[in-house]
């Protein structure tokens, strides 16, 4: 698997389209709002990717140290997805700007996505990180615009499975960080 595919997979699992769909299973985000949410999220990830080195400088941590921390936080995100599949977000809704809230934040721009954007931008490349983030955001925003109906059970299960896979990949990120110079 190429570096970009690996990063894109981790990003997709971090943002977790199935979890987004499961959270919004009783509602449908209109397509225009979904596009707005995706645009906001990509803009935020762009800022994080470009500012990753500066963020690490402010925190005074080396990119390799950040990689270990990011892996740990991704594992936490995966663990939460396994435990709840996003249940805690299901009451969040805005009738006027659902694309911004809850779609853009806290679903598309979520803690695992934020740490992934910073770590991958600092350790790999801004372009790869941003490209991977864009894929995860578009897929997840589309998932939020789908009416699930009785298929919410599948989304719930897939969200938890995605969390589990994320925990495994996060362990690999931690090991890579520990082995880095």
């Amino acid at each position, binding site marked *: 698997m190429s570096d970009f595919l690996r990063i894109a997979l981790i990003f997709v699992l971090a943002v977790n389209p199935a979890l987004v769909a499961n959270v919004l299973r009783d509602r449908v985000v209109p397509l225009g709002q979904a596009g707005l949410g995706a645009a906001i999220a990509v803009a935020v990830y762009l800022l994080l990717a470009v500012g990753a080195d500066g963020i690490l400088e402010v*925190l*005074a*941590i*080396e990119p*390799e*140290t*950040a990689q*270990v*921390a990011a892996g*740990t*936080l991704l594992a*936490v995100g995966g663990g*939460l997805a396994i435990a*709840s599949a996003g*249940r*805690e*977000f*299901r*009451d*969040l809704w805005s009738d006027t700007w659902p694309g911004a809230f809850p779609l853009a934040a806290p679903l598309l721009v979520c*803690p695992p996505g934020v740490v992934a954007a910073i770590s991958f931008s600092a350790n790999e490349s801004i372009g790869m990180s941003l490209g991977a983030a864009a894929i995860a955001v578009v897929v997840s925003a589309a998932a939020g615009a789908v009416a699930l109906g009785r298929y919410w059970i599948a989304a719930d299960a897939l969200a938890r499975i995605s969390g589990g896979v994320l925990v495994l990949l996060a362990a690999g990120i931690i090991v890579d960080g*520990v*082995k*880095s*110079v």
Partner: protein
Amino acid sequence: MRRGLFLSIGVWLVAMAALRLTVAAPNVCPPVTGDQALMAARAGAAWIENNQLADGGYVYEHNVESGEDVPGYNVVRHAGVTMSLYQLAAEGDLSVMPAADRGLEWMLDNLYEHDDWVALEDPADRSVRLGSSSLMLASLIHRRLATDDTQYDETMKQLARGLLVLQLEDGAFLNRWDRNAQQPVAGERSLYATGEAFWTLTLMHRLFPGEGWDEPAWKTADYLALERDDYEELDFPPWADQWASYGLGEMADWGLEDHHITYARSLAGRFGLLVRAESQRDFGGWSKRLHGPTARAAGMGTWVEGMQALHHLATVDPRMADLEDDLAERIECAAGMLVERQWTAEDAAGAPVPIRAEGGWFDEGITRMDDQQHALSGLLYAAPIIDARNAE
């Protein structure tokens, strides 16, 4: 449901706070120049010179709070300390030669002779160990590099032959020679000394090419790269072996195989991790509880020694080239910490015995002679790398 949301936010906040206090604590690397690193190396050498005993030995251990020397001695460390002085001489500072030669005389007075080989024996228990002979040989090699004086060439070859008596078929070395049984002590290997012997054999090949010293070095390189960590049953390999790194650095243009490079890369990662972790520590109580105690200079010095050798390998071998900048950055970081932690004349003025304090590195009030040895060696080789980094 709101409770779940708050619980989720709480989990994230706790996780981030816990990370900030532990693995994501700030990496603090004191700024340092090449000149400062070199001056610190020379001050470390001055500690060794100033604390050399009349018989050519050195003050082994000193408690800076009580002002008392701690009894004990270690022949391997004697050889290592002497070698570090010769390393400084080989880099151009011949002022340390008299002290180094007195240290050498001490070793020459304690040679064990057998057939066509010699070894350095411990005068305390008359044991003949691989590590002491290896580092005595490294001392003589660096003396030769510093002076071009050939008077000890035959001794070097005898010492090297003594090492080979202890080498096994798989490239590993046994740790001791049993002088009563007149044979190596079977089954006893040393985690440290195999790397020491390996490095000195690579250096012997540099001084005496064509005499075949490279052949046993290759065997040991394979053992270190492929088998040693398994044999030693290390829980968290690779063993942070600066001697193996020195040897691989010396072999940079020998045409190393991929498994040697894989091993070298793993060593680089291990040294890098150790430096990153150390840069998150300070002398406060909280730091000690959360990150463990600060490393002693003998430890930190070995990390810099190992990394500088691997940095050299990275400048020569394209398979390591991507690590060159990262290694230089870690070397600078560790050197900065070493310089910051060294006792200056001002620090030493208040010590009960200032001459035992100035230029030394103390851990919980104690310095051991190899603290100065490894810090000296590391800083000496770090200086040009830091200079090159700062010039960019």
